[in-house]
Structures are given as structure tokens and as C-alpha cells.
């Protein structure tokens, strides 16, 4: 089955676990599936291993047990076709490249060929028109984060992994980015995984929220959060979801058992 370049990829995490060489137990055997074209949020306390799980899906860490498959393939194979993109908490822009060149970098690395029109379009989409020629040092934290997200979208990935992409920006910018940016990756049917410790952000951005326990990470709750978009106002329904997530988190902190809770 030749994968359609634009269609989102389905991810199957099958009892994947991670124990670091120093003995740190980061992720307990975990099984979950990300449906193609949907946005899933992973929520959990700091240091619970959610970033490790994301890195295993990205193929940046090998699971010590179990398996991760993207449309039935190893992440390596998906990487090599340039179908995978990651945005980190730190924008990780190369300081010697301009904003445009940083965004173009993703296509260069994925050997997709130059596409100046696509870069310009993305710069416009993330609201950085007029800053294309500037170096990252001249931008604010929020602007750098937008550039990093534009870079992640430059290859039109089938799987987009966002590791606390709004973690390092101030609250106002964070809210603004969370309002504006989802439209960018929801348009193309990209499968998106968002790692965050912000409950509100998860409810606002995701179609489904998976709550993880403290380290080693286990699934505490799996909550579908289908709400009409755009979700600019937090209505009573969103508040109900937020309460359910917070309750699951508290259960996890109290050492409660893993339960699959419907929303």
C-alpha cells in the first residue's frame, strides 16, 4: 500500500517501554493507537516520560521493550521519506540562518527540493511576514516558536509531533499560538501528537486526551474531547473535560490504578 503523501499516518504503540542505561524507568509498557488525521494530546505531570514516548514515536529513542509502528513501518523508514516532523519546546532554530532559511531547512534535510513559495506561504500563515530575512536572535520567543512550527510544517508531514511547543513562551503568547496554530495542521489531515502539561491547552487543541501517570508512565485515562471548532471560548463542556483530566491526574498522583475513563 503506497502511502498517500498528504494523508495522515496511523501510529501503533505496542507495549513500548523505556529503561535508560542508568536504570531510570521512564516509560512502563504502554499501548496506544493514534488514529490517522486526528490530534491526540498526551497530558501528564512533569518528568512522567511523555516526552520519552514522543521521542520513541519519532524514532529518536529505541524502545527497550515493545514496538512502535507508523502505518506498520518502523519510524526509521518514515523518517527517511521525510514524512515525520517534530517541534520541540526549544524552537531550536539555527542562529546563523534567517527565518526563511530555517524553515527551508526541513525541506533540505528531507531532500524534498526547494519550494520558496511554500516557505513564503508558511511565513505568512504563522504571521511572520516581514521577518523572513531576520535571524532568530532578532525575534521574540513567541515568534521563534512560530518559525519552528512553520519549519515542522514545511515538509507537509504525515505525522507531526509537538513536544510542549508552547512551553517556553509567555502565557499571552501561548494562548494566542494555541488559538491560531491548530488550523495549520488540522487542514491537511495530518496526524498530530501534542505533548503538554497544560490541561487547558490539551482540551483546546486535541480531539482526544491521553492522561499519563507519574514515572514510569502508564495510561490513566483516555478522554475523547470532540468539541466544535474553533474553540475560542471555553464553554461548560470544555470545563467538564478539564475536570475529568484533572481528576485523572490527581488519581495518578495518589497512586490510583490505571482506568480507562470515557469522557
Amino acid at each position, binding site marked *: 500500500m503506497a502511502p498517500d503523501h498528504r494523508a495522515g499516518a496511523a501510529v501503533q504503540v505496542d507495549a513500548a517501554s523505556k529503561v535508560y542505561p542508568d536504570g531510570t524507568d521512564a516509560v512502563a509498557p504502554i499501548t496506544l493507537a493514534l488514529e490517522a488525521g486526528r490530534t491526540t494530546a498526551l497530558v501528564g505531570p512533569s518528568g512522567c516520560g511523555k516526552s520519552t514516548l514522543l521521542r520513541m514515536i519519532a524514532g*529518536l529513542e529505541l524502545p527497550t521493550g515493545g514496538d512502535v509502528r507508523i502505518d506498520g513501518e518502523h519510524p526509521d523508514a518514515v523518517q527517511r521519506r521525510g514524512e515525520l516532523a517534530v517541534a520541540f519546546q526549544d524552537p*531550536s532554530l*539555527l542562529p546563523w540562518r534567517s527565518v526563511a532559511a530555517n524553515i527551508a531547512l526541513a525541506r533540505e534535510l528531507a531532500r524534498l527540493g526547494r519550494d520558496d513559495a511554500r516557505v513564503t506561504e508558511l511565513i505568512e500563515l504563522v504571521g511572520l511576514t516581514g521577518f523572513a530575512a531576520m535571524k532568530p536572535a532578532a525575534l521574540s520567543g513567541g515568534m521563534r516558536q512560530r518559525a519552528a512550527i512553520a519549519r515542522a510544517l514545511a515538509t507537509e508531514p504525515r505525522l507531526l509531533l509537538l513536544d510542549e511547543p508552547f512551553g517556553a513562551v509567555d502565557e499571552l503568547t501561548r494562548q494566542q499560538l494555541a488559538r491560531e496554530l491548530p488550523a495549520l495542521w488540522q487542514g491537511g489531515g495530518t496526524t498530530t501528537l501534542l505533548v503538554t502539561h497544560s490541561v487547558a491547552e490539551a482540551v483546546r487543541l486535541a480531539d482526544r486526551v491521553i492522561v499519563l501517570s507519574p514515572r514510569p508512565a502508564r495510561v490513566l485515562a483516555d478522554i475523547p474531547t470532540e468539541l466544535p471548532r474553533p474553540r475560542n471560548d471555553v464553554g461548560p463542556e470544555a470545563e467538564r473535560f478539564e475536570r475529568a483530566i484533572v481528576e485523572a491526574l490527581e488519581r495518578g498522583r495518589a497512586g490510583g490504578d490505571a482506568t480507562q475513563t470515557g469522557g
Partner: protein
Amino acid sequence: MIVVATARIRRPSAPARRDATIGAVGVVIALVAWEVLARSLEGAFVLAAPTAVVAAIIDNGPLLGRALAATGSTALIGFVIGNLAAVLLAALAAVWPRSERTVTGLALIVVCLPLVATAPLLRVLLGAGDGPQIALAALAVYYTTLIPLLVGLRAVPDTWLDLVRVAGRGTLTALIVVRARASVPYLAAGLQIAAPAALLGAMVGEFTGAERGLGVLTIRASRDLDVDLTWALATIAAVVSMLAYAIIGAIGRAASGGQPPTILAAPRIAAGAGRLRRTLTGAVSAVLATVALWWGGIVLLNVTPFVARTPVDVVGIFAGTRDNGATRDALFAALGDTAVFVAPGYLAGLAAGVLLAVLIVLVPGASGAVMPIAVALRSVPIVTTAPLIVLLIGRGAVGAITLIAVMVFFPTLVACLHGLRQAPGQALDVMAVYAAAPWRVLLRARIPAMLPAFFAAARMSVPAAVLAVTVVEWLATGTGIGALMARSASLSNYDALAGAVVLVTAVSALGYAVVGAIETRMLARYAPEQAS
């Protein structure tokens, strides 16, 4: 031979201008003091006044110009060759990390080779002409460029490398797209220190029987007790070194754009149990690589058995199977004499460097004035300083110890000043809130922050001190292993020469390793953030 590369961070222009003014005033005061002292010592044949130096330079203009051109061109060729080798090996270590310990170990062995012995050996191997000068210049710059460059190639945030990996690309792409460009400021800092080192290498090469060059004139002037010309040559070499240092620094800052780094060449502190094993593996592989290069070189270059000594021969020398241990006993006796100079000189230089750095930090504004002078003097090669110290203090033990101390002092001072300034602002703020006394701030915040820089300087000063002592023994005191090497070279005693090269290199590398081990322990305790 200094690897604590430092480049100043761009500061606001007003303090910079103030520092420049203070620095200029300092230079003028120093010149006037020099002139007065020289005139009061007239007839003692020790010190030439600045006016006499200028007169000597003008009188000997064409001669000095030709010599400078000869030395400069060989130094430049060696600079290019040595740096190319360093860049290629650093790239190899970045693409193939397993090779890094061998590459750095080999580099350490090269930097520990005693110039006093390698210079005449290269003269024998490469014959008359510019070969030895170029080879020595290349060897002198190889280490000073390689180490900062390796630090720079590594000093890349993990997420930058993750971006490359997520795109399914490998270490070569990471090197080209991310690491190479990120290491440019570090490369510039390395090249900056390499420039005076190249001049040093070229001049030592000239000491062994070149026809032209500053080194040839220095030997001649020193022998003729021509005080004015000796000081004139030293001044030229010093000025050229400082100029090269400054110009490459400026080019580096322009090219790198960002804030130039401070490179302490701190060793990677491996965690826990595997450390000793990995260190030993690295040492063994570096020694094996050295033996392979050494033996392979003899075979490939078809060196005559009259000169060539293979590793087996040297083992025979130290085992006493070649000459009943006569050479070995002579070497160890000479090494004992050398230790008497090198240990006090090394420790005095370290102590003086730390003390002055601390004093300067306690006096507001003083570091701005002292730093440029110290950075400049640090770049003056030892072959320039040695004849002057001999003139000033004489050929005895005091002169030798002073020279070693001076060679250790400047890098230590510069490194410690940088370290003391790097005390975390928040720690200083906390102390300020409690109105802590300056000495308490020094003890609790600044000195711990200084330790990594101090140890990097102390470690790198071991080969520098050994170089200094062997040069001064050769040029001045006529005792110890340095003189033995020089004598063996002129008597064509290649057993003693080969044995001395191995012995001095081993002792130097061992000293470096010992300081490195102390460093690892101290940093693990006082600066755990340096551990990776």
C-alpha cells in the same frame, strides 16, 4: 602552547573605551619604567631601553625584514598544514565518535613531544632548508586548533541534531549542516592561539641550523651578547605574535557573528564506573597509534638505521639490554635535575596567576586594564622570552624557574580572570541581597566558578612547563634533560635522543593526566554542572 582560548564578549562601547584608555596608559607607564630601568642598568648588559630597541630595529632594518619574511612564510605554511590536519581529524572524530579518544590522545602526545629533540631530528630527516621549520610550526598548531574545534563540534544543542535525525539523515549531514557552522567561533579561537604557536615552531626549527630567519638571528645575538639586538628581535617576535593574535581574533569575531565562546577544553567527565576503563582504552589506543606512526614513518621514509630508533630499540634502551643501562641512567639523572626546576616553576606560576587574578577581581576596574596586557603577553612565544630572562636573571636556577613560572603564569591568569568573571549573576545577586563581604563573595561564588578555568589552564600548563624547562636548559643553564637532548643531537647520539623523546613525552603526558584526574575529582565536587 595555550589552549585556554578566550575571546572577549562584545561589550557596550563606553566601558570598552574606558578599558582601552586604561590599557593604553598602562602600556605607556610600562614603557617609561622600562626605559628608566634600562638606563639605570646601563653597562650591565641585561636590559635594552625601548629607545635602544627602536634604534637597533632601524639600524638592522633590512636584515630584520628579510629574517621576518623567512620566518613568517615558513610559519604560515606550517600554520596552514597543521590546521588542515586538525580540521580533518576533528571532522573524523565528529563523524566517527569512537575515534575521538585516539585522535585527542595522539594530539596530546604530539603536544608533549620535546621540541628540543624533535627539532634536530627533523633537521636530520628533512635536511637543510625550510622543512623542519614548517614541520615544527605545523606540529605546534595542530593541538591548539584541534581541541577547541572538537569542543565546538560537540557544543551543539541535542535538538539541533534531533532535527537532522528526524529527517532520516546521518552524522555526515549533521556535521555539514549543523556542527561545522556551529563550531566556527571555536575554530576562530583555536586559530587565534595557533598563530603565535606557529611562529614559535618556526623559530625553534631555525635554531637547529637554518640559514635565515628570526631564530637564526636570535641565536647569533644571544651568543654575541648583543643586548640591543636580542631585545629588538624579542620585540619583533612579540609584536608579530600579538598582531597575528589580534587580527585572527578580529576576523573570527566578524565571521562568527555571535558571542565568541570561552573554551576551557575541559575533559568530558564520564559518569561512574566506565570512566577508568574508557580513559585507559583511549590511552592505549593513542599509544598504539603513535607506535604505528613512528614505526611506519621509519619504514616509509626509509630512514637510515644510523638515525632511526624503532620502538623495540627504545624498549631495549630502557630495559638496559642495549648498553647495560648507561643511556637510561644518564636520562633519569638528567630528568632528576630537570624536576628541580620544573616543579617549583610550575607551582609558582600557577600560584602567581591565581593570586593576581583574585587581587584584580577585588579591585574594581582593574581587570579591564590588566586583561588586554595579559592576553597579549600570553601570546609571546617562549623562544622570545628565554633569551631575555637569561639576560635579566642569568643562567642559574633562578632564571630557569622564573622562565617556567612566566610561561605558566600568563595562561593561568587569563583563564582565572575569565573564570572569576563567570560567577553566575544570580548567585552574586543573592549575596548582594545579604550584603556579603567581598571576600565572602569571592570564596563562595567566584572561586568555585573559577575552578574549571583554573584546572584547564593547570592541565595545559604541564606540557608548556616541560617545553619551557627543556628550552631554557638547552639555551641557558646547560643542565638537565634539555641540555642532554641538545648535546645528544650535536653528538649524533641517537640512542639518547630517542630515549629522551620517549621519556619526556611520557612524563609530560603523565603529568597532564595526573592534573586531569585531580581536575575531574574537584569538578565533580565543586562544579558538577561540568559533568556530562
